[in-house]
């Protein structure tokens, strides 16, 4: 491929891109991050899991069989 088409890189965009790429280096266990991880990493998956299991149990009740056991 012929050269001469390289981007004129902007140092602020490059810095921003680098910061976004290395988010884990700037991660700190603040109260906000604790709350976010607690909600989206633990609470929400548990709620989704319980909702899915409840859906299965409702099917079992409609079919007149005992609730299935899951992990």
């Amino acid at each position, binding site marked *: 491929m012929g050269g001469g088409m390289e*981007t*004129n*890189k*902007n140092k602020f965009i490059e810095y921003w891109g680098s910061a976004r790429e290395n988010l884990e280096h700037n991660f700190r266990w603040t109260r906000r991050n604790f709350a976010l991880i607690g909600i989206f990493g633990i609470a929400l998956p548990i709620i989704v899991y319980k909702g*899915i299991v409840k859906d299965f149990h409702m099917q079992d009740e409609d079919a007149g069989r005992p609730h299935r056991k899951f*992990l």
Partner: protein
Amino acid sequence: RIRPIRLIGLCASLITFLYSPVPRIQFDSSTAKSQFVESLRWLPYENINFYLGIDGISLFFVILTTFLIPICISVGWSGMRSYGKEYITAFLIREFLMIAVFRMLDLLLFYVFPESVPIPMFIIIGVWGSRQRKIKAAYQFFLYTLLGSLFMLLAILLILFQTGTTDLQISLTTEFSERRQIFLWIASFASFAVKVPMVPVHIWLPEAHVEAPTAGSVILAGIPLKFGTHGFLRFSIPMFPEATLCSTPFIYTLSAIAIIYTSLTTSRQIDLKKIIAYSSVAHMNLVTIGMFSPNIQGIGGSILPMLSHGLVPSALFLCVGVLYDRHKTRLVRYYGGLVSTMPNLSTIFFSFTLANMSSPGTSSFIGEFLILVGAFQRNSLVATLAALGMILGAAYSLWLYNRVVSGNLKPDFLHKFSDSNGREVSIFIPFLVGVVRMGVHPKVFPD
């Protein structure tokens, strides 16, 4: 000296591709048994054989593998000036190993071949990757895969201890106790979850995709991402049915969370390759939802997105590769208004963006529709969440396209342009044909 090596590699891969439809033509679709079986005694004292064969599922994956390798060699044509011989060798060895993964009928090969595939990929990323970060990405990719598979090796050894053989057909007919099934299922899940990849062990994929060369990303998106779902389909689901039923809500939860979280993450990305990589995670987790819906729509529907996913993200990575070859950046911020300067690429990019969104008429639509139908019959909540993921998929795909192709040019950053040349367009054409063919007439694949 490089030119004859490149030509030999390309010819070898093209010959393999031209031969690959022969099993399709000779395939007897009236039987469910494996065909074109090859068996060699490998470890005779342990009754472990080198046992390969093709069935209706693996047939198309073998063809897909042989289709992608010549494209990868063509894509890396100019990049092969450094270590060209090694480049060709790595891809051809990879081709052999990937074909063997889809053909294996022995349990120990279920560990050996999928774990051998990351070795040439490690070299491809580490040598031909674009930045210093490639070393970290290569190690991450390799170690994630290996650590997950160690548990799978334990599971295989336990099966060998119980059954006395690693023959897959015999193991499929063996009845394991429920407790043992759960243990073996969890052990194999550790391996396949990394390969799918499922949240939270998916981090290796965006890193590997970004740091790999274009050809490496094409092949990584095309074939190795199918190993996890292929493993579930071949190993976990048929061999441990009770454990599969017990763990269905767990898989549904992980997959639904993965689809929504990675779709939202995709929309936050600023690197073109990372956007496509995260969208791959969402698509493959939709496939696992279909696979764990034990009905014909779910399981049959999950095969089609697996095949489609071999074409669409690979083509999208090629589009990004075209841009990167010219402008040496993947940050979305620099791009805009490319429709006026690169109309050919814009058209091609739009076609594959539609396919990534699972638009009707493209390869992904029928499969994802069947998956949703199958999932809805099983559990309406997970089908709703998966459908939400599809909407988010359309959102980030269109947003990506708009940012890169539409709008105003950014002359501050990009001042010189060159549209896709004949070689590049000719590489895209087979992908377009495949996507449209699968979208318009997908019947041949489930049949």
